[in-house]
């Protein structure tokens, strides 16, 4: 029940309340009256404010609610003489001017122990077409309801176009494509279809729903490319964990209100469009695990609100990190650029992102030394530079090393060393930083191949290993050495 006042309405409301305060004897309950386009009376709604006299549920809607409840296995509801008066959790009603109650919200499914929406009988639940007989319905929520009997999203939901504002069919077991009729829901603000088994492509008709504020289609099997987007008030866009292909549409840059974009775990390709620079409200951008290409676009730097950026697992092509790419991202706290086939040195500009808490640059081909201004990243709690080709002195102060503990990962580089005078060594756990020695001592042998295989990305253990485990481990290492030996022999042949 989202209520938005215009100023006039607000003033009118205020005046009305004042008049009521003056006129009504205080013992009598009263309601603040405000009309909106739906013809309903908006006011503080609570179970207590329903007056027993003269107020009843619209009989057609009541029948429809019985149907919908029967369809979810909640036959008990049909014994209720007036569904609005005996309100249960999961139904909300509002009166019109004639004191007839209309259903504005219906919710189903075991969300949690604290929220007792009517449950769904998983063996026979379906969404009843009678839902279209609720002309005032604003919110419809089904959570984990139909998972035993997979069925498509009913196209008749499109008939709720004039009123429906929130449609949540979450983990509901829906199959088939997204019905293009959803595009008729022109008043929709929230569309949440997370984790169904929907396939097909995102219908172009969805573009008609211009008032969308949150669109969550994540965790489905949607294919095809992302259609052109033109949602000026969209805040949340989550298309993650689908099978989407094609490139990121440049029109994304016109959705100026976006604060979260999550396209992770799809098959998107092509470059990150330059138009992204228009998203100055964006806080979270997750494009990880796609097939994006090209260098990191320098317009990234205009995302001044960005707090978290994750581009992990996109082999962008052997490009360096552009030196000014992250220049303006003063609020950035999380930056994940792992497994991106990045080459060249670490730009010094990264060391100026002093709000960074998490920085992952691991599993790339970065070379050169760690910029000396990394010692200014005092807030850093996780730093991964492992599996690169970095050399030279580690410029981190001992307080940083101490603070990050095992979350500092520097192993598998070409020749990192620490300054003997910095006191680094007394805090540095030799187990968690293998292959790194004092800069004044002879360098330890880089053991890149073996380490890389043996840790397979999870990093070395930091706990003490029992003799048994050590034995197993050494056998294992030997096995791996054998493997690499055979591999080498094979390649030579």
């Amino acid at each position, binding site marked *: 029940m989202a209520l938005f006042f215009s100023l006039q309405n607000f003033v009118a409301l205020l005046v009305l309340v004042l008049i009521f305060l003056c006129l009504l004897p205080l013992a009598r309950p009263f309601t603040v009256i405000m009309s909106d386009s739906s013809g309903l009376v908006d006011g503080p709604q*609570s179970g207590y*404010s329903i007056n027993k006299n003269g107020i009843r549920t619209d009989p057609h809607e009541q029948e429809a609610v019985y149907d919908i409840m029967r369809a979810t296995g909640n036959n008990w509801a049909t014994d209720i003489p007036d569904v609005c008066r005996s309100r249960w959790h999961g139904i909300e009603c509002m009166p019109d001017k004639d004191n007839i109650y209309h259903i504005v919200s219906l919710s189903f499914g075991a*969300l949690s122990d604290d929220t007792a929406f009517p449950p769904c009988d998983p063996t026979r639940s379906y969404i009843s077409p009678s839902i279209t007989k609720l002309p005032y319905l604003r919110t419809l929520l089904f959570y984990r309801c139909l998972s035993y009997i997979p069925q498509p999203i009913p196209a008749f939901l499109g008939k709720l176009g004039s009123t429906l504002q929130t449609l949540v069919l979450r983990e509901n077991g829906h199959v088939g494509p997204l019905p293009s009729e959803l595009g008729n829901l022109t008043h929709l603000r929230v569309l949440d279809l997370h984790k169904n088994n929907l396939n097909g492509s995102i219908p172009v008709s969805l573009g008609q729903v211009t008032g969308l504020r*949150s669109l969550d289609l994540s965790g489905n099997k949607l294919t095809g490319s992302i259609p052109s987007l033109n949602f000026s008030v969209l*805040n949340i866009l989550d298309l993650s964990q689908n099978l989407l292909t094609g490139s990121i549409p440049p029109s994304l840059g016109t959705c100026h209100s976006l604060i*979260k974009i999550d396209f992770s775990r799809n098959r998107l390709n092509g470059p990150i469009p330059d138009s992204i620079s228009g998203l100055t409200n964006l806080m979270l951008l997750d494009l990880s695990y796609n097939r994006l290409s090209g260098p990191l676009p320098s317009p990234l730097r205009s995302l001044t609100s960005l707090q978290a950026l994750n581009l992990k697992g996109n082999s962008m092509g052997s490009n360096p990190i552009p030196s000014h790419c992250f220049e303006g991202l003063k609020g950035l706290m999380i930056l994940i650029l792992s497994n991106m086939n990045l080459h060249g040195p670490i730009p010094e500009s990264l060391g100026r992102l002093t709000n960074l808490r998490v920085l992952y640059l691991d599993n790339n081909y970065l070379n050169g030394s760690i910029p000396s201004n990394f010692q200014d990243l005092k807030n850093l709690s996780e730093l991964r530079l492992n599996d690169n080709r970095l050399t030279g002195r580690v410029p981190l102060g001992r*307080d940083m090393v101490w603070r990050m503990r095992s*979350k500092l990962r520097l192993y598998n580089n070409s020749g990192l060393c620490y300054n003997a005078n910095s006191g680094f060594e007394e805090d540095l756990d030799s187990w968690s930083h293998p292959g790194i020695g004092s800069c004044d001592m002879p360098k330890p042998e880089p053991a890149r191949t073996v380490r890389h295989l043996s840790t397979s990305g999870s990093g070395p253990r930091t706990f003490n290993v029992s003799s*048994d485990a050590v034995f197993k481990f050494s056998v294992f290492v030997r096995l791996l050495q054998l493997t690499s030996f055979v591999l080498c022999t094979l390649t030579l042949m």
Partner: protein
Amino acid sequence: MAFRVELLLLAILVSLSFGSVDSDDGATLLEIKKSFRDVDNVLYDWTNSPSSDYCVWRGVTCDNVTFSVVALNLSGLNLDGEISPAIGELKFLLTIDLRENRLSGQIPDEIGDCSSLKSLDLSFNEIDGDIPFSISKLKQLEYLILKNNQLIGPIPSTLSQIPNLKVLDLAQNNLSGEIPRLIYWNEVLQYLGLRGNNLVGTLSTDMCQLTGLWYFDVRNNSLTGSIPQNIGNCTAFQVLDLSYNQLTGEIPFNIGFLQVATLSFQGNRLTGHIPSVIGLMQALAVLDLSCNMLSGPIPPILGNLTYTEKLYLHGNKLTGSIPPELGNMTKLHYLELNDNNLDGLIPPELGKLTDLFDLNVANNNLEGPIPDNLSSCTNLNSLNVHGNKLNGTVPLGFQRLESMTNLSSNNLRGPIPIELSRIGNLDTLDISDNKINGSIPSSLGDLEHLLKLNLSRNHLTGFIPVEFGNLRSVMEIDLSNNHLSGFIPPELSQLQNMVSFNVSYNNLAGDIPTSNNFSRFSPDSFIGNPGLCGSWLSSPCHEYHPTERVTISKAAILGIALGALVILLVILAAACRPHTPAPFSDGSLDKPVSYSTPKLVILHMNMALHVYEDIMRMTENLSEKYIIGYGASSTVYKCVLKNCKPVAIKKLYSHYQCLKEFETELETVGSIKHRNLVCLQGYSLSPSGNLLFYDYMENGSLWDLLHGKFQILSKTASNAVMETVDPEITATCKDLGAVKKVFQLALLCTKRQPLDRPTMHEVTRVLGSLVPSTPPPKQPAPNLTAPLPSTKVSCYMDEYANIKTPHMMNCPSMSTSDAQLFLKFGEPS
């Protein structure tokens, strides 16, 4: 082709060998055990023997088919040490419950590998560091409960990428930064607990996107800005607690659309009027707007809130009169309107509130009489009308009142009604600073549970009733600034619990009783009584009015003086004779010095209802079976008292040589109240030894902690002190050498043998040498504070119940952090 087959084979070989190491959950569990400390007693069945099936190990639950570990429940086992990174190997874990232990260190990154995890509960530990990024990878996670730890850093906005998060409880940590707007965009989040952190910034209008949330709690942070104008859209909320922040502006009008049961805005800087629409929020059970800067009248429509049990509006700038409609709030238990600018009468309609337990209208400008109707509030336990302009007489009919009656600082007239003495359970009676006349009814002596009696600053005449000697629980009596005459009844010296007694500025005469009890009261308690003579040497009677004592002959004076001298000498000789060097191993000494009746001196209220005999009876004369430990100087017993917290009794090995000195010292110690010190509740100098009574604290002794489990001392020896210091100190403190020194000094002070410990003089010298010459700028030092031993709350409904019971304080400045209080305490005065 052959090449590929070979490769494939190798790949299989590698994966097999990897699998054989990885899937052995038993080995992984043993790794996890290793990073705990001293767990052999609780995890004794976690062994490496071949016959041991890890699925039956304590706290381990396995899948019936695959035998992989699906749940790890090790809550409340007093586990020490850290969470092993090996936990990431248990890929099929659904539940990790390690709450209520003493785990430290950081949350390991590897926890993000437990990709099936639905519930992660690490609450009530000592875990530090940031919330790791990898937690955002747990896509199945529904319960993330990390409250009551020492986590720092911001709330990661990537937590919004956990699609099924239903409970996010990060309360009571040291989290900073803003609340990320993104976590509000969640259809399934039910519970958001962020109280007790250092969060800043404003509340976003997006918070009402939490369409499934019922519990929203950001109490006790540093949030600024105003309450979002669209707050009324948060229609799912049932508990909205924004208290103890720095919120400004007015309460939005559209708040009336909320359907909350608890609305807590107290301790902010809210201005403007109380919106009348609050009267429409009929589901409200608790409405707390106290300690803000709200002005204007109390809306009469609040009387519509017939389900409300607690209405707190105190500590604002409210004006106008108390609306009689409040009498319609039939469920009301607490009504606190004190510390406002209210005027007019106390409406007699409040007498309709038959459930009312506590009524506080103190410190307003109320006039007129205290209505007799209030006596219909049959459950009224506490009444406070202090500091108004009330006139009329003291009301008669409060027979059910139990605890506090404070009628002080008004314009009440007439005598003290005898009926007051029928309120048998009364513990506080304060009628001071009025215009009460007549004499003190002797029946007041019937109030045997009375702890505090204040009749000062009135026009009382007549005598102090002898019956006051029956007030056996009383701790404070203040009769000063009246016109009382006659003697101080010697019976008052039977009041052994009395710690404060004031009869100054009356017309009393005669001798002050000479018992121990009375000699402790300073001359200030007696001055202003021209006829009163004390037995202390600096008594004004002896100095200024020696000739007035016509009733006593000079011979008598001489006799008394000689007698006193002899007694003094005897005491001196007895107390200060050369002591025997060896400490006594037990308390059964040769004859104790000179006390005939063992007395129990109570320093704090907790023990007020108990006497020495009770304690001896309950501990069977300090029987061995009540011993809980031996210290360097004492044996410690535990005694569970009726109706109050258990006490620890320290029986000192050696008797003090100078009793007086001992007592003085004890009273000094007893007067110290600090959160890091165990409170001295009382002491007794008895035949069975010198006994000290402390609050009983669980978790054993500090010495054991230092030397046993944490092994801090051995760490000092190996120069690894910094391992035990809070890492945040390294971030805020430039001179780590100083930290190290303070640390070592602290360790010196905890040496087992008192002789090994430095003297206070040495300590101040060392600390002085560490202080730079210019006083450092006062910075909040966030980690000086250890978390309080919190009440352990098992479920969220309990917590909800807790929140429904806000603190009953008069505008405590809750915004000052514990750290600041600590600093304040530490400041040289």
